[in-house]
């Protein structure tokens, strides 16, 4: 395949969820850069993989399928490391599906845990629209805010690693706000790799709106120290603060040092110097380290949750080490006898 057409209903991954449906999908044999709408093929002798569809459902890509996704970087604490090579993806080259949302790039490293999205695919070409211009997700990002910043409080959820319970903590904060009568709450997954299913949970639990980096034109906030990331975070925050809302709940994907979380915190503190912070930690020492790192940044943790609170002993140790209240969100009251 060099240049060609694909059917309008060709499978596409959720990182392209803001790209409108195309009457005709045409592609060219050109290098693919971050955010470009690109066609990939899973070879006929491969195992099927699953990815997230733009609706949020789990979608199978079966051997022989051509599907749309985008080149992207990923530096995960627990799952997959991958990157876009200098110059972009080369047509005919073989790459890997690095994330459920449809990031594709060179595989750098892979943890032992099972990943249903991880499969080797061939890069076919870059999709272009009317006028012959290549399509990129940043062309479909939210517009610049028209209203000025509003003075809503910010509840920030940070974690010591992936899978430390950040989304659970964020949902609990959101639910608390709603139950306390705050009718309109905005949710933002500010850093890391996007997943529609994740921000949809915030909507399920009562967020008036929920956003991630795809809404601001980026397929992921990796790699660390990338050019222009502060400008993206500025746009993200200004947009969220421009919306009429009683509160903003922000979840930072990854750990404190990855996914450009430090750059995000800098941008946030210019607007809200003293956000309320919930720390999700996998263990007491991780909680202690994160509390100290944040303290060095001038930020105080208000509450700790996550696996470091799974047993009364661990929870009490976390509280004693960090000097911060710790609660567990995954148990019934009384289930461990001393949850709060």
């Amino acid at each position, binding site marked *: 395949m060099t240049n060609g057409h694909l059917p309008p209903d060709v499978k596409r991954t959720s990182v392209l969820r803001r790209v409108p449906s195309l009457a005709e999908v045409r592609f060219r044999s050109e290098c693919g850069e971050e955010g470009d709408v690109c066609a990939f093929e899973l070879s006929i002798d491969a195992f099927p993989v699953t990815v997230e569809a733009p609706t949020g459902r789990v979608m199978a890509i079966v051997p022989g399928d051509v599907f749309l996704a985008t080149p992207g970087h990923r530096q995960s604490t627990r799952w997959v490391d991958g990157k876009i090579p200098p110059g972009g993806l080369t047509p005919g080259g073989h790459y890997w599906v690095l994330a459920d949302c449809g990031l594709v790039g060179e595989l750098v490293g892979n943890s032992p845990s099972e990943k249903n999205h991880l499969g080797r695919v061939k890069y076919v070409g870059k999709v272009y629209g009317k006028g012959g211009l290549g399509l990129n997700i940043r062309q479909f990002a939210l517009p610049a805010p028209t209203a000025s910043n509003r003075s809503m409080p910010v*509840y920030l959820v940070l974690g010591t690693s992936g*899978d430390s319970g950040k*989304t*659970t903590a964020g*949902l*609990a*904060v959101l*639910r*608390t*706000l709603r*139950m*306390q*009568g*705050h*009718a309109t709450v905005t949710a933002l997954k500010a850093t890391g790799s996007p997943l529609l*299913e994740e921000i949809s*949970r915030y909507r399920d*639990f009562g967020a008036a709106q929920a956003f991630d980096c795809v809404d601001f034109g980026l397929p992921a906030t990796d790699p660390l120290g990338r050019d222009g990331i502060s400008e993206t975070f500025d746009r993200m925050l200004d947009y969220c603060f421009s919306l009429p809302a*009683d509160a903003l709940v922000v979840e930072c994907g990854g750990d404190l040092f990855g996914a450009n979380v430090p750059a995000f915190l800098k941008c946030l503190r210019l607007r809200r110097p003293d956000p*309320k912070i*919930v720390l999700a930690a996998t263990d007491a020492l991780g909680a202690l380290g994160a509390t100290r790192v944040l303290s060095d940044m001038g930020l105080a943790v*208000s*509450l700790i949750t996550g696996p470091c609170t799974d047993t009364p002993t661990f929870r009490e140790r976390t509280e004693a080490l960090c000097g911060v*209240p710790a*609660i567990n*969100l*995954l*148990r*019934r*009251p009384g289930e461990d006898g001393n949850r*709060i």
Partner: protein
Amino acid sequence: MGCLVLVGGKPQTLKIDAETVQAIAKFLGIERSDQVTAISMAISSRPRGRGKGGSGRSAARSTRRPRKE
């Protein structure tokens, strides 16, 4: 207040009960919204019914047709 249960792609269950809400609200300083306070004040200061022939709930009750035996 009931519990909400989240069952995600991962085997986890999120329970948000009154105790959890109170704890999170306390530690994060989340106060009851003015909107809720205003509604509860409006409800508590609403004129009471004045019995037969008046208005409100008791009046509505008094004009209800007697149940057929």
